[in-house]
């Protein structure tokens, strides 16, 4: 309650929370694009999402050790993870594409544990970050302070989102991906190599996660065991936005970031996640209720 009064007394802090939250949400949205894609096209809920993000972060970190500016890590991590994603598909994922959801959740969960331990062995368990040294934007007498990297992250999210939509609409493989998502069987009949489509989709998802990880290591911190929150957040964003709705993913991502930040401020950080998940439940119940109504009309 006191915290609410504080926001009423000094509204400038709500501006801080809002901007900061929206921009954090942009980073989550980038990973969520990938999850929406894999889920929509392959019907796989990819639990490995978070580990791909962290792996992308490590790629950027090691690049910065070589003296390269970490911002270059965004494309490099994306490329590296594209290759990793392709490899993971060829090793495991292709075996589970047509199986039920439970099998794919188990398999990707297994891969995520394996990746965590491998990263722990290779990179160590230390907390890492790569500083882009872009400074901070200060407004209103320092009361609002936003790290500039977060604006860069927003720009990247929007640009990548737009490119992704273009790619899916215009390119041959993009069209093949959409066709496969609509009906894999029909697509196969039309001569589309769906296996290739799945591999591309999965690798593309990993690439998006890689880019996200690169932004995460520049904005916050990473270590091998912190991937799960990015999986959970991607999942939530996709659930709220619905499949096949990239614009919705951006909106849901930004919204989630902002809501999370306000909840953390008002209720204390310990209730931040609890609040967001309660909200998810409410959204799902409400959506189910509306769907139920629609069904009644149809009858």
């Amino acid at each position, binding site marked *: 309650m006191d915290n609410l009064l504080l926001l009423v007394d000094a509204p400038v802090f709500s501006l801080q929370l809002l901007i900061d939250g929206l921009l954090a949400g942009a980073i989550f949205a980038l990973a969520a694009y990938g999850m929406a894609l894999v889920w929509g096209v392959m019907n796989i809920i990819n639990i490995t999402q978070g580990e791909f993000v962290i792996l992308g972060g490590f790629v950027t970190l090691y690049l910065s050790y070589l003296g390269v500016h970490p911002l270059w890590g965004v494309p490099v991590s994306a490329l590296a993870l594209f290759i990793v994603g392709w490899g993971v598909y060829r090793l495991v994922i292709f075996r589970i594409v047509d199986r039920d959801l439970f099998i794919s959740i188990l398999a990707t969960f297994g891969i995520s544990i394996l990746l965590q331990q491998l990263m722990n*062995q290779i990179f*160590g*368990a*230390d907390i890492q970050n790569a*500083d882009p040294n872009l400074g901070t934007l200060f407004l209103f007498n320092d009361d609002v302070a936003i790290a500039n990297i977060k604006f860069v992250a927003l720009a990247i999210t929007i640009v990548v989102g737009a490119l992704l939509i273009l790619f899916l609409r215009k390119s041959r493989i993009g069209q093949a991906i959409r066709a496969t998502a609509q009906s894999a069987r029909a697509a196969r009949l039309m001569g589309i190599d769906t296996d290739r489509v799945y591999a591309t989709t999965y690798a593309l998802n990993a690439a998006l996660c890689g880019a996200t990880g690169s932004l995460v290591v520049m904005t916050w911190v990473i270590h091998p065991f912190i991937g799960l929150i990015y999986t959970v957040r991607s999942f939530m964003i996709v659930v709220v936005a619905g499949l096949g709705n990239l614009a919705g993913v951006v909106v849901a991502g930004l919204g989630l970031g902002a809501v999370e930040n306000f*909840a953390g401020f008002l209720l204390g950080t310990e209730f931040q996640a609890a609040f967001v998940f309660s909200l998810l439940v409410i959204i799902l119940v409400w959506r189910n209720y509306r769907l139920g109504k629609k069904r009644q009309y149809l009858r």
Partner: protein
Amino acid sequence: MYKLAKTTIISLGTALLTFGLVGNAPAKVEGDTIVLGAAVSLTGKYTTAGNHTQRGYDLAVQRVNSMGGVKVGGKSYRLKVIYYDDESTPARGAQLAERLIKQDGVKFMLGPYSSGLTKAMAPVTEKHKVPMVEGNGASRSLFNKGYRYLFAVLSTSEQYLQEAINLAAEQAIKMGKSPSSVKVAVAVENDPFSLDIRAGVLDDAKRHGMKVVVDDKLPRELSDMSSTLTKVKALKPDVLVVSGHSKGASLAVRQTTQMRVKTPIMAMTHCESAKVTSAEKFGMRAEGILCASQWAPTMTYRDNWFGSSGDYAKTFESAYGYVPPYQAAESTASVLVWVDALQRAGSFDTEKVRDALSATNMQTFYGNIKFDETGKNIAKPMVLRQIQGGKYKVVAPTKWASDPLVYPRP
């Protein structure tokens, strides 16, 4: 009969080898060697700290052996430690304690790294009445269970940042204000260790009549502290206390500078493991932060094995190539406590050794050690080190201060 025993031993040995354990089947004392047992984290999330722990033990063992070993009942014995990797998981730690005691016949245990692992192993050592001396489990909850065989050389966790509150009170008095005018912000991770720290800080804040304006518990999967820090910025407390292992420390250093959160006193744990003084990782952002430490190389304690604290730091650095963090120092001290107790007991009877441990009253390079009836060390205070010019300088308590406190922090 003899043949049967031989076959059994051979098949047992083969079995052990098959499972990847090179079984050398030692007992508590083999010939002239005293065997200590330890499970430490060599893989998993505590790998870094686990390595410090093992190196601390190893250094002590080397030094004691090279200086003539442990004298028990007029005979000299060498020390040896059997290690297992607990993979940073408590369940594994408990299993390994069982194995060390039952299969390897270890009667003298050294602690693992972290309160969580110690908490998992203590019931096992207690059940088998095997004494354990540990230097890396600080949680209060280890010392309210009535354990008879657990001894800890380090200060318990609620003391970690209490001194920061007392410093704030001192500064308030110096500026002609009452300590009760001081506002405190607390942001700790939601885990037993950090909650202990919070309890200690809140106790002391209450004692001084201070107002706690922010009291946030950070989630374990913490990735962003900005909402808490926005609150700190809005409420302008005089003291900010952060505890969230190295993750919390790195985030706090990063985000307080990013957001220009300025509190005259900012105190944290795990500065060393987060490497906040590393210029390439953090620049000079950690300047003026107070870090809780169990021990510092500048302190003036000494003992016969290593000499002064500074000498210990030098020995460690020449062996391992880096300045020893307190996790290593307290591990070394645990071994020294065993040596002292075994020599005073003059016997390998675990009950006699336990009583000797319980009567410990000694100075080591790491600090004074004297256990109360719960087994925790009550003779050594925590110190606060302030980061000044990128270096750790002890500023509190006054007795051990090497430099004056820079207040407010730059």
